[in-house]
């Protein structure tokens, strides 16, 4: 059954007119918008856009947080056969220039003054950009820039038009074919310009449905939309699957109230990248440390029970009677209240993806009875490629290929995917398209991995990043930087790590401490510090991190394949790696090559055997100003272990 997003909207509006489609918390109250109201709003917006000159095939950029009116605008553009392009709302203005010019965008939707300012700022480079519609008028009252229009005005215009031509909306929607382009997503791009990934209604909806079928999602699900709409994952969860299943999407009040809103909504279908799960766990642990002795003891006892019993229980394995009783007691006293406090008591299916998740973290959530699973996919595959079935969730795999997906491992270890959800093309970039999507229909993921004995896919690293050491003790050993970095990042004290080693004689690492965790650790030890840079360079902190590094080495040495990736030397960076400084992508992945260039003296010092190195770095603030941070960084050696195999 092939269809389009606007047709699904009409279907829900006809069949379930009064059922809530979206909720938004405003003025302290969750305000619901029914499917009927939503369809009316989309109709008005579509009519308004048509009058403003928006035509079939036109692109429209959408910048803002998750709001009903943002999604309605996307639906309106699609109703007219247009193509919405959501952009990251926290990106700097200059990052919008390329997508806007690449897709010859004229129409823009901006959430508020902050976004409008950014779009106006780049107008000189994007002169065609007009009109700009804004949702929230605050602070914009006296803006006189041409083409700047309130969404309310557009709605009024559209309503008047819809009264005169009531059939227009429906006729336009009927013109669209399921294989028409539905949306475009710009990938953050670790190198060069971002690429516009073109998806059709079919490709997005097919995957949305396959995922929904896999987890038996229904119209009764509740979802909290809190990640950037420009990220395809959020788009799948709060748009494609929303329209496919007809469940309720809840929009938080503001970015700072997400944890409160999560508790109030109690979603049944939840997605979060590992760092969100980690943040939630950290906040629990910090509060537990301040709890009364009795509560602490109870927590510790029952968490131990959960660690022992929980995973087996979640995997559907048999559990002894005594353990079952203890777990039930723990559920009443600890796990239940804890799930409730995290806002996860109604979660039926929770996913994490985007980064590797620490085994301890993963097990914690599963052991307290949250069905946390992993999935594998990317912007190019409309997310759903592999999913973990309910009883087979593991920390180190990403699940089995789901309905419609074929997977093959190429000779160089690269994962190749065939699926109905593959991208149509990269926009105006035939070379990149040909490279990623070969003529035999396989999409090249750039990920290196293999299928394990249970049929689960396991990812090691990006293909291009997997390298080999040259010279030294582990000559020609395989080096998977991401694998090493992730192992480091599983420690709460380490926020980011950047590993180098390809073509070198040993592995060296730049480390970012987690300011909250290490700061807390330092305070408990009465260790005074004057800020991030100071804390990072404390000898005690170096010792703390060194212990982590050596634990990773011990762990790596057990792995025949990756024993060579053990870390010889490391240093702790004086500033946090930041997307605003270009060191991370907008999805918080480290840009290894860029960092190597930017911190060239540090990398040289690591390999040159120095024990300290001075560095000065320019940092960019969110308002566009810049300053500089400088420090002399210590460099430490870490112990490496002989691979077990060789020793035996």
């Amino acid at each position: 059954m092939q269809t389009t997003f606007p047709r699904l909207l009409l279907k829900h509006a006809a069949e379930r007119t009064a059922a809530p489609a979206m909720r938004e918390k405003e003025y302290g109250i969750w305000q619901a918008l029914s499917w009927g109201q939503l369809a009316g709003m989309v109709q008005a917006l579509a009519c308004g856009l048509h009058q403003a000159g928006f035509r079939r095939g036109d692109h429209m950029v959408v910048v803002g947080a998750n709001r009903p009116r943002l999604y309605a605008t996307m639906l309106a553009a699609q109703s007219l056969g247009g193509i919405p392009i959501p952009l990251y709302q926290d990106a700097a203005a200059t990052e919008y220039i390329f997508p806007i010019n690449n897709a010859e965008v004229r129409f823009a939707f901006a959430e508020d003054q902050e976004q409008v300012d950014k779009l106006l700022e780049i107008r000189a480079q994007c002169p065609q950009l007009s009109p700009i519609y804004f949702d929230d008028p605050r602070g914009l009252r006296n803006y006189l820039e041409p083409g700047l229009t309130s969404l309310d005005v557009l709605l009024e215009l559209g309503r008047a038009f819809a009264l005169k031509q009531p059939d227009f909306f429906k006729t336009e929607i009927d013109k669209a074919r399921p294989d028409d382009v539905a949306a475009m997503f710009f990938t953050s791009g670790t190198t060069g310009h971002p690429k516009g990934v073109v998806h059709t209604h079919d490709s997005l909806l097919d995957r949305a449905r396959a995922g929904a079928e896999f987890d038996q999602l229904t119209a009764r699900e509740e979802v909290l939309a809190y990640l950037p709409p420009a990220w395809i994952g959020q788009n799948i969860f709060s748009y494609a699957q929303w329209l496919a299943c007809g469940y309720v999407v809840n929009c938080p009040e503001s970015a700072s109230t997400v944890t409160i809103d999560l508790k109030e909504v109690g979603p049944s279908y939840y997605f979060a990248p590992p760092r969100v799960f980690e943040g939630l766990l950290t906040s629990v642990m910090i509060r537990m440390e301040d709890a009364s002795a009795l509560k602490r003891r109870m927590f510790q006892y029952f968490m131990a029970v959960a660690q022992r019993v929980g995973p087996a229980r979640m995997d559907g394995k048999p559990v002894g009677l005594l353990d079952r009783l203890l777990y039930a007691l723990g559920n009443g006293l600890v796990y239940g209240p804890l799930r409730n406090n995290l806002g996860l008591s109604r979660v039926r299916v929770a996913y994490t993806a985007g980064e590797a998740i620490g085994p301890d973290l993963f097990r914690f959530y599963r052991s307290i009875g949250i069905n946390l699973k992993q999935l594998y996919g990317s912007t190019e595959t409309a997310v759903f490629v592999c999913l973990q079935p309910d009883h087979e969730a593991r920390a180190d795999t990403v699940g089995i290929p789901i309905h419609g997906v074929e997977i093959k491992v190429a000779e160089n270890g690269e994962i190749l995917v065939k699926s109905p959800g593959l991208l149509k093309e990269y926009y105006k970039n035939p070379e990149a398209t040909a490279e990623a999507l070969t003529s035999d229909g396989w999409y090249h993921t750039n990920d290196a991995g293999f299928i394990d004995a249970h049929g689960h896919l396991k990812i090691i690293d990006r293909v291009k990043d997997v390298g080999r050491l040259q010279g030294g003790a582990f000559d020609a050993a395989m080096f998977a930087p991401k694998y090493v970095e992730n192992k480091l990042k599983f420690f709460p004290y380490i926020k980011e790590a950047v590993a180098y080693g390809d073509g070198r004689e040993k592995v060296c690492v730049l480390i970012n401490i987690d300011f909250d965790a290490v700061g807390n650790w330092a305070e408990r030890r009465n260790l005074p510090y004057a800020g991030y840079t100071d804390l990072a360079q404390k000898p005690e902190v170096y010792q703390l991190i060194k212990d982590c590094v050596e634990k990773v080495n011990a762990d790596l040495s057990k792995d025949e394949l990756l024993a060579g990736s053990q870390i010889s030397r490391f240093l702790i960076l004086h500033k946090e790696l930041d997307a605003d400084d270009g060191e991370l992508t907008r999805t918080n992945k480290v840009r290894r090559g860029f960092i190597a260039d930017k911190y060239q003296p540090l990398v040289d010092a690591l390999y040159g055997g120095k024990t300290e190195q001075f560095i000065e770095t320019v940092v960019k603030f969110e308002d566009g100003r810049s300053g500089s941070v400088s420090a002399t960084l210590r460099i430490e050696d870490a112990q490496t272990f002989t691979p077990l195999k060789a020793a035996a």
Partner: protein
Amino acid sequence: MTTTQANADRSAAGPSPGAKAPGTSEAQGVAAHGGSVVHGVTSVGAKKIGDVILDVKNISLAFGGVKALADISFDVREHEVRAIIGPNGAGKSSLLNCINGVYTPQHGTITFRGQTFGHMDSHQVATMGIARTFQNLALFKGMSVIDNIMTGRNLRMKSNLFLQALRIGPAEKEEMRHREFVEHIIDFLEIQPYRKTPVGQLPYGLQKRVDLGRALAMEPQVLLLDEPMAGMNLEEKQDMCRFVLDINDEYGTTVVLIEHDMGVVMDISDRVVVLDYGRKIGDGTPDDVRNNPEVISAYLGTSH
């Protein structure tokens, strides 16, 4: 709790829907939000400044032999941002205290909207639509943010104490109406995450914002701000500036503020009055004041 009303067509009137907290949680906390002062300046040109709304004439105030204020006169026009500056002990807070009736001046008159008073009565001042915030905060530390701001609605609560205590009948309806107004303020000041947090647990900068919220809850025509930015870091100051300008711009509220930070004063005020040892030594636009030799000597000292 859900309602299905008024989402499809929100009117543009009233405070803007869904104002978002600036995304400052990431980036090491040193990054400053890109909004604030600059935008306010763009909009100043469009605002209409009206007639004199508050006229202070020949005010003198002495505590025993100490002359806190000597023959001060100045006026405030409707919709303007009026700053009072001066070194420590110049009499700035005393002047505000005379205006809102905390102190009674020995000489002089205060005219508000055509009514002339020898001295002001605090309760009467509040009823007439003059609200203020305090230099050292005057909040109920153990009460939640919402409750603190609700106290600003006290004057507008009409139902009797008994009904209010039981929260029945008209009292309940009334409370809901006031709560809605307070929610608009919370949205405006972007303090949604702290609605139910006891004020005492909030950082200082946020407490200042709550203090401002409570003053706003009175729907004042004139807002007296006593050092709204004292003790704040740069980012908090920028946020506060934005709120002061937004209040002035969106609601047309006249703002009289005492401030030490010259950068802030020169950026956001329409006119400035300068006090020194209880005397007025300057009055005019920020540029006039900046170039006034007497002001320069009061602030920087001169060689004799």
